[in-house]
């Protein structure tokens, strides 16, 4: 790469960093005052893009950008006053889930309004050309974007440090109770900060339309980028977000510039990993105070009714005698997702780790099984047996970083990892088949009938769940729970809490991999959907639906959810949004914890 090419990539990186910074700054601001990680922040960015593309048709580009940003801010206002305001005191997990429900709803709303095709934005009139820099052409508009990031940074800095309102925001970020006691009107402050965060996200999206088309996938892509930025920069730190946005923006630009666009996410992951190893709370962040308390009150874990479950197993074993093929396929799906949910429950329940990226290990199992069969030409049985090991290995690699953190940091990191895994599957055409995925992943001849495969799934899933339950009841499971109940006490009796959690990650990944591999052979094909973030959230909903504090709850939750999804997806066009709406209604109706 010549000197001038390096300079150009550097400038390209700066332009990308500006958009990233706008999203990450909003995310950080909102988290600072409300302690809510807004998973829908990428969706607001996407909304800004679509609105700007639409508006620019009639109003022209320059008017459409501020107007789109203002509309997104208004949407933020509505979201805060109708939804978030009701759940500020709800458990963290429910808050995250509620904002994720918004992701589903906003995506389907965009699909309804703008259709599934990417929408190209206009060029910026007056800045549509290119300038010559070091003998190469560089888009004029990107120069403006480069200035936008620092300009917004300075404006935010002045707003927070030089105005009374900014002082209130900073006071609320540092000590919410004290700020309230001193007469800061929390309600209005929260609303205003959320609207400001939404404005920034909408502005970031709208101003990016000359560079990239608006698409439905951009929400999660931007969100996971923003998560990486705030994790690297330090949650709640605006300068940290700025610094990290520059770092990540440059990393992306150089990967793409050098022709390794597939590696972008892997490199991003490595940057994040290095930062986390040396500064677990990010470059300029500070640790969350509450992570070292004497512990939270946790209910006991009652043993499931083995009589009921035994009866159910017998029933499941005789179903194929009288059920049609449709029911058998649905039951196979239910069994697979019951195991998936049970493996996630190990992390969420006894482990106390809210994973928003469990589908990564499910997908890793599925893809490994498919690749071993199709590319390595291994027998199906061997592929099925080896695939979970790959999932466990992946879980150990990702988990090592995750267990350095806790609470929302951990949730964000798991989600970012899952998005990275999804992107690899989506982008690495030669290996994974890209967006088309893999086809022809069929089981061995003796398993080719739906019945035979159902019995295989039944035996493996019930066996795996039984193993998981035994594990939760074993000394390992107790030590894991001890670390969740009171990290302080656990460490004071010789338990290396992170080591227990790390092992739990590997085990949960292994069992998710079993579920994923079974899923792959039951469908005959694998698509990137298999490990997408919405699939991870499906798992969360299953576990919460059934009850995270019980052993058998996740199984019932998985059965109910899988059946519901199956019925909805055939009857309702926008069924993802429908699921999102159901989640929201439940969270709002029972803000103190839904499914106890």
């Amino acid at each position: 790469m010549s000197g001038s090419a390096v300079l150009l990539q550097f400038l390209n990186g700066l332009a990308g960093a500006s958009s990233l910074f706008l999203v990450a700054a909003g995310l950080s601001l909102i988290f600072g005052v409300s302690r809510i990680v807004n998973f829908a922040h990428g969706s607001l960015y996407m909304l800004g893009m679509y609105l700007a593309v639409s508006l620019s048709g009639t109003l022209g580009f320059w008017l459409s950008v501020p107007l789109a940003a203002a509309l997104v801010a208004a949407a933020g206002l509505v979201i805060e006053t109708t939804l978030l305001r009701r759940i500020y005191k709800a458990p963290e997990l429910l808050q995250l889930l509620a904002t994720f429900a918004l992701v589903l709803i906003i995506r389907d709303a965009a699909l309804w309004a703008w259709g599934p095709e990417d929408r190209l934005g206009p060029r910026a009139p007056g800045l549509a050309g290119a300038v010559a820099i070091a003998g190469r052409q560089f888009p004029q508009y990107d120069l403006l974007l480069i200035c936008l990031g620092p300009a917004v940074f300075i404006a935010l800095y002045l707003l927070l440090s030089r105005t009374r309102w900014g002082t209130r925001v900073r006071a609320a970020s540092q000590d919410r109770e004290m700020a309230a006691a001193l007469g800061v009107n929390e309600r209005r402050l929260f609303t205003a900060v959320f609207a400001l965060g939404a404005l920034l996200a909408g502005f970031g999206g709208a101003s990016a339309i000359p560079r990239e088309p608006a698409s439905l996938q951009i929400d999660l892509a931007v969100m996971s980028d923003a998560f990486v930025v705030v994790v690297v920069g330090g949650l709640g730190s605006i300068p940290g977000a700025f610094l990290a946005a520059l770092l990540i923006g440059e990393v992306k630009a150089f990967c793409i510039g050098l022709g390794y666009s597939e590696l972008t996410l892997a490199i991003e992951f490595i940057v994040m990993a290095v930062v986390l190893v040396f500064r677990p709370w990010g470059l300029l962040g500070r640790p969350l105070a509450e992570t070292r308390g004497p512990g939270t009150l946790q209910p006991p874990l009652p043993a499931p009714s083995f009589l009921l479950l035994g009866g159910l197993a017998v029933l499941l074993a005789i179903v194929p005698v009288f059920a049609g093929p449709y029911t058998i396929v649905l039951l196979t799906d239910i069994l697979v997702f019951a195991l998936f949910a049970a493996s996630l429950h190990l992390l969420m329940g006894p482990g106390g780790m809210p994973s928003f990226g469990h589908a990564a290990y499910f997908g890793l199992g599925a893809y490994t099984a498919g690749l071993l069969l199709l590319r390595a030409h291994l027998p199906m049985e061997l592929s099925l047996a080896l695939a979970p090991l790959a999932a466990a290995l992946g879980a150990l690699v990702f988990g090592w970083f995750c267990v350095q953190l806790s609470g929302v940091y951990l949730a964000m990191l798991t989600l970012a990892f899952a998005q990275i895994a999804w992107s690899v599957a989506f982008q690495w055409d030669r290996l994974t088949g890209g967006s088309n995925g893999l086809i022809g992943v069929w089981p061995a001849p003796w398993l080719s009938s739906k019945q035979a495969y159902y019995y295989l799934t039944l035996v493996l899933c019930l066996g795996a769940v039984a193993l998981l339950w035994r594990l939760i009841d074993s000394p390992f499971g107790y030590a894991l729970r001890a670390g969740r109940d009171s990290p302080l006490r656990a460490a004071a009796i010789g338990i290396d809490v992170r080591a227990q959690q790390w092992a739990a990650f590997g085990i949960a990944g292994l069992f998710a991999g079993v579920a994923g591999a079974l899923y792959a052979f039951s469908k005959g094909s694998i698509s990137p959907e298999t490990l997408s973030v919405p699939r991870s959230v499906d798992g969360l909903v299953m576990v919460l639906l059934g009850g995270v504090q019980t052993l058998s709850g996740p199984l019932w939750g998985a059965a109910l959810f899988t059946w519901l999804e199956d019925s909805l997806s055939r009857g309702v066009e926008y069924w993802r949004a429908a699921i999102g709406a159901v989640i929201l209604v439940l969270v709002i109706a029972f803000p103190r914890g839904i499914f106890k």
Partner: protein
Amino acid sequence: MSALEVRGLSKAYGGVQAVRDVSFSVDAGEVVALIGPNGAGKTTCFNLLNGQLRPDSGEIALAGRSVVGLRPHQVWRLGVGRTFQVTATFSSMTVRENVQVALLSHHRKLFSLGKPAGRFQVEEADALLARVGMQQQAARPCAVLAYGDLKRVELAVALANRPRLLLMDEPTAGMASDERQALMQLAAALARSERIAVLFTEHDMEVVFNFASRIIVLHGGEVIAAGAPDEVRANPRVREVYLGNA
């Protein structure tokens, strides 16, 4: 050789010197009180001793072995039990299970996937609970216990790996007066019979002067007096700090 030997221990938070050049030692079988007004640096001292905090400078040795830089779970393996100012127990488990988890750790079974944890070392757990008078409540969930009972569970848990040093941070806070005496009597008896070195912080001066064989007084992060109870009681500097006059 002392069970615990502390030399020149210092720790600052930002600009605040929480602990400054603190030196003392505790022998096996000895019950030593660490006292001082609020903010004197007692809890910081404890957190340094069991590895929750890393000292800026100074040396901490358990029976001659340095523990500076070790994490809490490693310090515990060297024989340091601890109770907390605000009790920390496993609220999803029963009283017996709390002790069993500590025993599992002691026997290095934390990664065992074998038989259910609830069937592990039941008798040993109950014997420990009997020593603190909690055997009747062994099957009750920890979440429903009275505060004084939780303190006793913590003590049983801390004894599970036969510690050489027992750190008790305000062991009797939140207990009724006769309960306080009983708990400290128990700790003192254990110290004598098992040759455990006991270091405790306490606000109740009656407890301190009844049970401590030696007293170390912290003020502003520094040791201002140390010695037998009568010496400390007579020390003018201590009187000044506690009573506000010389």
